[in-house]
């Protein structure tokens, strides 16, 4: 039954129906997301602070908050840090993930099941629990990782190394934690695509004398490109927003040295209670992320998603 055959009244009915079905979600989204977003933008133009929470009093300050944020060297340090850290995380997890996916195609069924189960365990652990496990692995004095490194001996005695007290070490530990949990999703998603590569192409390339690595680069990788693109964009968005792991491992410290934009926003708004300033940072972060999201939407449309 096509639209033209349908009577005008039935069509109006269906439109009313669609509106009816959408309205509960619309009301909820309006109340818990759209209104808060408007409030966030509004607050970014005020000097809302801890006192305002009790008294409700605040002043409009125009673009002062944005000016303060954009001239704050701490903000720019956090901005650069976020981009570098996100890049390191995305690069690490996508490279390892794609490698593991390929590994899965080259091993026997039993071993493949074992690797899959191992991946699911790392993936499934809630990141709060994983962060606590990490603190334990890297604990000064008793951490098994410190012990292992000391045994290897390259870095000297690391038994009492406090990873969260040194910016570089804290980032390394958090990087490992996030990559550990990010690789499974990427590996399994890419593997699902890799099993769809037509065997005829691979065989044809082999018959032409291509080596394994040549087949992978010239046949498999081009086929996987859309999937790798998608997981790269998703990883970028997720890693940009990382909060729990950094907060629970280093609290953004020492001295704010591991505070990415998410942590910096949180500290500004909920530790210093400069809520106006925090809102300004939040607005800036949201706009930055919207740019990345637009790439995600474009890539979804390209991969055939019917919007």
């Amino acid at each position, binding site marked *: 039954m096509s639209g033209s055959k349908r009577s005008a009244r039935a069509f109006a009915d269906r439109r009313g129906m669609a509106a009816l079905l959408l309205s509960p979600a619309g009301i909820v989204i309006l109340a818990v997301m759209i209104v808060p977003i408007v409030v966030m933008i509004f607050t970014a133009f005020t000097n809302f602070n801890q006192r305002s929470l009790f008294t409700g009093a605040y002043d409009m300050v125009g673009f002062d908050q944005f000016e303060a944020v954009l001239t704050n060297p701490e903000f720019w340090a956090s901005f650069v840090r976020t981009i570098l850290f996100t890049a390191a995380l995305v690069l690490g997890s996508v490279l390892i993930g794609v490698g593991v996916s390929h590994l899965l195609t080259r091993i026997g069924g039993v071993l493949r099941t074992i690797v899959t189960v191992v991946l699911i365990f790392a993936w499934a652990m809630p990141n709060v629990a994983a962060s606590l496990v990490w603190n334990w*692995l890297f604990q000064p004095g008793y951490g098994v990782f410190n012990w292992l490194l000391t045994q290897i001996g390259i870095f000297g005695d690391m038994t009492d190394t406090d990873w969260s007290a040194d910016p570089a070490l804290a980032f390394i530990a958090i990087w490992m934690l996030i990559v550990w949990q990010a690789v499974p999703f990427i590996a399994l998603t890419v593997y699902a695509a890799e099993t769809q590569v037509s065997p005829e192409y691979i065989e044809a390339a082999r018959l032409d004398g291509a080596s394994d690595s040549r087949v992978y680069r010239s046949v498999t990788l081009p086929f996987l490109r859309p999937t790798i693109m998608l997981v790269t964009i998703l990883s970028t968005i997720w890693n940009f927003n990382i909060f729990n792991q950094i907060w629970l491992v280093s609290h953004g410290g020492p001295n704010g040295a591991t505070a990415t934009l998410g*942590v910096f926003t949180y500290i500004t708004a909920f530790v210093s209670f400069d809520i106006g300033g925090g809102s300004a940072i939040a607005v800036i972060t949201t706009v930055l992320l919207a740019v990345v999201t637009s790439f995600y939407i474009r890539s979804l449309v390209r991969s055939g998603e019917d919007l």
Partner: protein
Amino acid sequence: MNQRAKTKPVSTSVPRSRRLKKINWGSSVIAIVFCVIWFFPTYWMLKTAFTPRADALSTTPSFLPVNFTFDNFVTAVTQSGFFLNLRNSAIVVLAAVLVAIVVGMLAAAALSRFRFRGRRTILVVILILQMIPPTALLIPQFLVFNATGMLGNYIGLILAYVALTLPFAIWVMRGFFLALPAELEEAAQLDGASSWQVLTRILFPLVLPGVIATSVFTFITAWNDYLVAYTFMRDQTMYTLPVWLASFSSPVTGTDISGQMAGSVLFSLPVVVFFILLQRKLVSGMSAGAVKG
């Protein structure tokens, strides 16, 4: 040339599928090393959870369990607040999942089975809302809930979790609706069924497995949340389990690492079970709609 000489006889004698699945020993060794490294943190958590506290805090770690015990689990659950905070988690998470799924399912039906103006815009808005940094949305939610007296109680946290999960739930369930053939609806309409009957009698039952999968995704996202609960719930009796777990180290005796690992195991258990049950759907579901990381 050498390569070709090696490959050609094989391709004629061995069936294609077999040859492609040829086991590569180098890869197997790498895979085993990978498994050891990747499973080690989970193993260490389990090992510590079953080791008495005194043995866990040893300067020379033992890689096999010593003095295997369940005591740490007893310590964890009898720790002040475990059952209370578990109850808080259960109430808040289940209520949020219920709202997000019911409201989301209706919206997903509208956005997949009906064509109307503005549909594309709504879908893009949903995707954008889905990607908003959680720390950004937290500030205005805090202000709004503070002003309306919903900070520190269930209602505020439930609403925050609905915000966290609803866009994703709509997006994923829409995918399940789209997978149903259009002929189903048309046949029912020819038989005189109203739009509402088509939805409730035909589409909803068929999409049920997808709805269950989405409920589980939603459950996991809300269950794992630490940021919102940590910010909204200042009173210990209102903590949810993630906040309880992270604040485990506060008692007078210092950090009871074995107890904390036992608590981590208990907290992770339902999520791990769900992941194993839903492994395949997770891969497609997450890449289609994305969960907040």
